[in-house]
Each structure stands twice: as C-alpha cells, then as structure tokens.
C-alpha cells in the first residue's frame, strides 16, 4: 500500500515523497491503591506522508481512511500553495544499509493484568502503576528505498506507598520478555520505601549527589532535545556552539542509538539508524540531523529524521569504573531516586530546576543519615554534565511516563556540588 500511495503522489506532481504506514496494537493496565482501575487496548493505523514540490513541503498524518485518493490530491494542492521552505534540502538518497533488529514475539502474548497481581503479591503498603505492551509494525517507501520494521516492548512502573509521603518508585522495561522483571521492580520499590522512613524537610546548599538511573534518565531525556539541530537553530539548545568543546569528564560518553526499548531500523526518511556519539570522552561531537539540517551544517544525516525535525530514539551512557557499592562507599551527600517536572528558565544557558520525588536519602560517610523531602535541584544542565565525578559499571534500562519519555540505558551518576533549594515559607 505504501508503494501504491507513493506512486500516486509522484504521478500527481510530487518531486519527492515519503510514505510511512504504522500499525500498532497496544495494551495497558493501570492500577492504584492495589487494584486495577482500567484495562485498555488500542488498535491504530496511520499513514504519514511527506511531499516536496520544489522547496514547497508538506507533512500529513492520515488516520481517517475515507477517500484516500481525495486526501492525496488535497496534499498536492496544499503543497503547491505553501511558501518555499528555505530550510529544505531534499530527502535521503543513500544510507539504506539496514541492520537486523530482532523482536520478541512472546511479548505479544504477555498477560498484563497477571503481572500486576504477581507484583502486588510481593509487597505491603499501597501501590500504583502500569503495565504497557506495544507491538508496532512500520513500512516506509520513498523514491529511493523501501523497508519494513516490526518491534515489541513491555513496560512496568510501580510506586509503592507505605504511608503518606513515604514512597519508592521503580520500573522494569524491556524489549524481550526474559529481561522483563516486574516482581523485582515491585520489591525494589517496596524496599526503597521501607528504607525511606520519617522524611524531614531537606536543607538548602551545594551537595554531592548520586543520581539513580531513573533520575539521571530524566536529565538525559531533557538533554536529548538540545542535541537536535532544529532546536539548536530555534534557541532551544544549551549545546549551541559546543561542537568540539569539552562538556563532561573524559570518562563520559553518551549516544543516541536506533537499538533499545524503542528500536527502529530506519528514520522517517528511510535512512538506517545507527549509533551517534553525542558526547564522546567528554567532548561534544555532533547534533542529530536529517538530510536538510545536515546540509545546512555541511555534514551527513545521522539517521534521526523525524516527521518535521531531527529526533533522538534511545539514549545510552557507557558504563563507568565503579561498582555501585564503591560509589556509595564513604559517600557524603544526597542519593536521589526519582524526579519530575523539569523546567528551564533559559534553554540556551541550560538553567533549570527539577523536583526530586519518592525516596531521597542524605548520606554521611557511606551510611544513610536521614530521609529528606520537599527539595528541588536548581542548577544548570551544562554544569551538571561538567561536574560528573563518577559512573557505575551497573546500568539500567529506564523509561517512565512523561519524565523519561525517551528510553535509555543509564548508570548511577555521581555529580559534585549540585545546588539544592526548597520553599522559603
């Protein structure tokens, strides 16, 4: 069908076109206060179309399949009436060596509600969360390539409360059923909550902080947007003019990859996805590009074309040298396990704040001294990366709701001199 639509668009006058068809079967179970609130199932189909006539371009998403031929004519008519897009430099004509990415069919048969019951059986207190499984098929056709993709993944997220304001939150996310362990996530969340007793309001100041993978995953989640070349031009990036500069310590390497929880063989131009080291050995290496932004920056596409602008797919931080135990040994500072509501006061400078939630521990000499609450990390993204002091060997794949919306693999991260604030009254 994608080839048929492509040919029709070319006959109608498109100079270039991309047609991507996506089919999704998604199931979710939500639970709270130890019972299932709702079970959901979506069957969705969509056709994404890009058309260029000269430098006039248009993107369309069709989820209403009535009279497709008329929709295609309208798209061409619309493209002709638009103004020229001076940022457009064509779509990819090469870069189509796709790698095979296996997907686990067993995920499709997983019983979401059973995972909830199994997890709840292992813990005390009250818990809330979700189980979500995705089965996505994608086909893409351009005048220069045709490809298909299929992947599955499964997510479990649980927040356990033992009393008011005493909670732990963990996730288990995987692209194969063998690595999916919701029971362990539930027990870990419960154990975190058990350790987090009688929290008191934290103190302001500069602290060394160990960020849990779930927390640092959120930091990276809000960082990857700054790597998109589109956002660099739009004033949304604190990485503007940073290519070639040292932005982190030498042992720090962070990449975007097409293989992960949200695996994809190709981007929205049909270009094969790969690995792009954004920060390599502490040096900022590249923005993420599609064909048009790459032309502007006199480089090659990185295989990150989204429908409108370059996007990242899955992030990964390479492991460090420390065991988790070594990281906490003699540690004095704060261990932060989760966060939410990250906002910037200036996206070009990277000034931001984020609000730690769930278990927060103040450590002295390697031991938990107090549980804290009601604090805020109020700092600067560039300073956070610059002040990274150590990474753990152990890494976890994380993805959680909107706060770690893009999935990734992250170690525990020790950062020096993080600014902590709280309410004044």
């Amino acid at each position: 069908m994608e080839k048929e639509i492509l040919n029709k668009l070319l006959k109608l006058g498109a100079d270039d076109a991309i047609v991507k068809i996506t089919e999704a079967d998604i199931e979710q179970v939500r639970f709270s206060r130890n019972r299932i609130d709702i079970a959901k199932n979506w069957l969705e189909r969509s056709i994404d179309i890009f058309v260029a006539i000269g430098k006039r371009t248009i993107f369309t998403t069709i989820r209403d399949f009535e009279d497709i031929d008329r929709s295609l004519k309208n798209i061409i008519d619309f493209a002709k009436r638009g103004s020229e897009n001076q940022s457009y430099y064509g779509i990819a004509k090469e870069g189509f060596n796709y790698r095979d990415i296996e997907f686990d069919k067993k995920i499709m048969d997983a019983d979401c509600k059973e995972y909830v019951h199994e997890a709840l059986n292992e813990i005390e207190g009250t818990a809330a969360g979700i189980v979500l499984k995705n089965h996505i098929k994608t086909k893409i056709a351009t005048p220069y390539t045709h490809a298909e993709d299929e992947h599955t993944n499964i997510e479990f997220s649980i927040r356990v409360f033992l009393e008011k304001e005493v909670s732990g939150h963990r996730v288990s996310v995987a692209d194969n059923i063998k690595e999916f362990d919701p029971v362990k996530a539930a027990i870990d969340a419960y154990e975190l909550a058990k350790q987090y007793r009688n929290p008191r309001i934290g103190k302001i100041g500069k602290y060394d902080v160990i960020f849990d993978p779930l927390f640092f995953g959120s930091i990276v989640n809000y960082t990857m947007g700054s790597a998109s070349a589109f956002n660099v031009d739009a004033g949304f990036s604190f990485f503007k003019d940073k290519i070639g500069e040292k932005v982190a310590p030498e042992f720090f390497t962070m990449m975007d990859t097409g293989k992960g929880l949200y695996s994809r063989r190709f981007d929205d131009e049909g270009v094969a996805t790969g690995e792009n080291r954004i920060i390599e050995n502490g040096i900022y290496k590249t923005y993420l590009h599609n064909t048009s932004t790459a032309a502007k920056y006199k480089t090659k596409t990185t295989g990150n074309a989204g429908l409108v602008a370059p996007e990242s797919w899955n992030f990964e931080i390479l492991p460090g040298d420390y065991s988790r135990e070594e990281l906490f040994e003699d540690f004095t500072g704060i261990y932060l396990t989760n966060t939410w509501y990250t906002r910037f006061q200036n996206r070009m400078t990277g000034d931001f704040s984020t609000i730690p939630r769930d278990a927060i521990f103040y450590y002295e000499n390697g031991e938990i001294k107090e549980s804290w609450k009601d604090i805020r990390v109020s700092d600067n993204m560039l300073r956070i990366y610059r002040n990274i002091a150590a990474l753990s060997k152990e890494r976890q794949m994380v993805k959680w709701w909107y706060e770690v919306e893009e999935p990734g693999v992250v170690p525990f991260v020790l950062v020096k001199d993080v600014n902590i604030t709280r309410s004044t009254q």
Partner: protein
Amino acid sequence: MDIEDVLKKVEEEVDYAEVRYEKTLINNLVMKNGNIDAVNVEKDKGISIRVLYDGGIGFVSTNDPKDINDLIKRAVKMAKNNKSKLGLSEEKTYKDRWEVKQKKKIEETDLEWKIEYLQDLDRKIMETNVNIPARIFELDDKLIEKEYVNSDGTKISAYHPKIGFFYFVTVVGKTVEQGYKQFGYSGGYEAFEFWDLENIAVEEVKGLNRVANEGKEAPKGKMDLLCGPEVTGIAVHESCGHPTEADRIMGRESSQAGESFIKEAMIGEMIGSEYVNIAEDPTIEHSYGYYKYDEEGVKARIKYLYKEGKINEFLHSRETAYKMGIQSNGAARASSYDREPIPRMANTFFVPGDYTLDELIEDIKFGIYMKSFTEWNIDDKRYNQRYIGRESYIIENGEIKDPVKRPVLEITTPGFYKAVDAAGKDLEFTAGTCGKSDPMQGLDVWMGGPSIRLRNVIFR
C-alpha cells in the same frame, strides 16, 4: 460509523457502556526564524468504547471500523477480568447538540492567508530593532466533530472549532532572555484580534530587551509581590486546580502526575486568606477549555475550588464521584476519542476583586512586580512551587521602577495563598496545554486571574 449500532452491540453484555466518536482535521504551521519550516495536516477519525462490568472497567479504541467487533469482545473480556468494585455515579441523561460559532471560519481561511499573517507578525517584532536571533511560531487550527452515546440514554453531538498559537523568542542583549506565550480560542480566526496577538508579541520582545539590557539583580529577602494575570494564572492552575482533582486525591494518578496534599476530608479547611476565591468554569464562551457537556455526557458548570480561603470543591468524573458517594460536577475530559475521560481543568481562574492596578501598587513600599514567568514547577503533591519572573520590575514607594532579572519565588501552597491581601479587576487568561494521565493527555486549557498582591513573601 453509527455509534448507536456499536452501543447496541456492546450494552447487552455489560452493566454500562459508552461510545465516543471523533472526526478531526488539524492544520499546523511552524515558522522558524521567518521561514515556514513545516506545513502539517492531520486527519483522524475513530471511536472508543468504555464498558463497566461487575466493577471492572475496559476501554478500547480504534481508527479502523473493521476492528470494532473484535475490540468489543476485548473490552468486555478486560472488564470482566478486572473485578475492581468500581462504579460510575448516577447522572441525569441528556439528548443535545452544541457547537461553537465562528466569525472568520477556519474552513474558509486559506493557507496563504495564515502564512502571510505569520510572516507579517515576524516582520513586526523584527521592526522593534530588538536582537531576536531565534524565533519560533506555531499555529494550529482544529475542526472537531464529536458524538457521544451511553447506555443510560445520553446522546450528545458537538462541533468544536479551535485555534491555538504559541511563540518562543530569544532576545540577546547584555544577557540572553527567552520568552514564551501560548494562546487558545474556541472559534474561528477572529481569535487573532481577540488575543491582540501583534501588540502582545511586540511588547514581549520589548520587555525582554529591557530585562536583557537594563535588568538589575533581583533583590532577595522578605518583600511584597504583585503577580500579573499570567503569574496568577499559572499559580491557580498548579496549586489549586491540580490538587483538587479527585482522582489525584484518591491515588489514581499516583504513579504518574502524583497525588495531592489535599485529602478527601479537607473540604472546608483554610488554605489561604479570605481574599482567595478560585473558580473552574468550562462554560466560558470561546474559551480554550470550553465545553457544554463533559466526555461522560455530564452537563458542565462552574465550580468554586477555593472559596474565601477555604478548600471548597473537587473536580470529578463519574468514577471519582461514585467513589465519594456524590454526583459528578462535569469535569471529565479526554484529549481525544482514544483516551479515557478523567477529572481535568478547563478554565481555572482567580476570581477578580475590586482594585485597579494603580491601587494595588500604590501602597507597596518595596516589592517585586512579576508580570510574567519563565521557569516554573511544583511537586507532585502540589505543595512546593516555584515561579521565576520573566518580565519583572522593582516596586518602590508605590511606583514601578527598574526591571530585574529572574526573581525566584519558591513557596508552599498555603504560604502563597495566605499572603494574598488584594485582587485586581484586570481578569486575563493565558492558554496552556495541561499534562496528565497515562498515556499522556495534553489538554487545552485557559488559566488566569487578575493581578493579585501578596504581602511579605521571601525571594531567594
């Protein structure tokens, strides 16, 4: 797709069923630094079915009619498996149709006119001679047709045209300052005049330029605060609207958007001064959050969430109302047919008082006028919030003086509302996209209020 036929197929097998249908056409333009970077069109049409059986709820959705019979079976099976002792409150039934009127119809407004408007707006802000190296404009118009039926007998249809716009500008002077503002309107392209968009955008870049070039370091310590309507609006949205959502109070959003410092038994407790009155009203004509009936077919009405400083009413869906043994107040919304309806805000605002802006300012000896905000956030129990001024000024002896850079207010919810001692007459609304639920449901809302005065708050 006849949704009454779908309802007939499913209702016999369950205790309750509802079917929602939507057909949507969205046109979207993105202009970056004067260039039209994207012209997007999105066409969607689909249905969702929600069923209740023996206390279990199942929800299914598709945009392909051939899946419907299969999905009905899945919905019933999922509900039967759940056995959660859930229910929906008994509500009055309605048969009605509503629509929002347009003066300059979206259907008759062509692409060229929209592009010219954005290009003209870009020219106007560049003619200020302010250095604005990065500028993003995004314009959306939506035509939404909706139908709703449920097995209680309610049948509602609606036609809802909407316009949304935002700008994000980066101004470079002695420092770099960034400004963002979102606009929303139910109706046609008369929205641009309603918003006074050109003047606001021009004033925005001039204000940021003053801060970037003349802004002094923000004073710290205890002083008075005058919040402009934009700041009042974000505060009431974050620390009144969200904590009064009944599903949060009952823990249903616990692992996502969080819970609430407010508990069910706290109705009537003081949260602020006697001058604090905050309402939530979906029935404001042409508002971004407008609706006549919510997504469960319950008639919309105004709610007073905080009244004379006391916690007064929560936002309910039929599910939360059933749990509390009361009736819904028509706050169940969904971002699209493929999302479940849950308690949400629509248009939340601080109820205006009697003061003019001059009267609010004249007896401030020393304080900050926070006209607009940049960074903001609040914890997931909605208690500790932070607002940083975007365009802000010193007030000294009753007069507005120098601009100041990014004053930081970090304060608890009662700390904020107990400090309020006066509210102005100058009610204004700002549009926003409110986030909640899983999968995320970004919803069109207005938030607003007049200028309000707070005494003796601490800036850090």
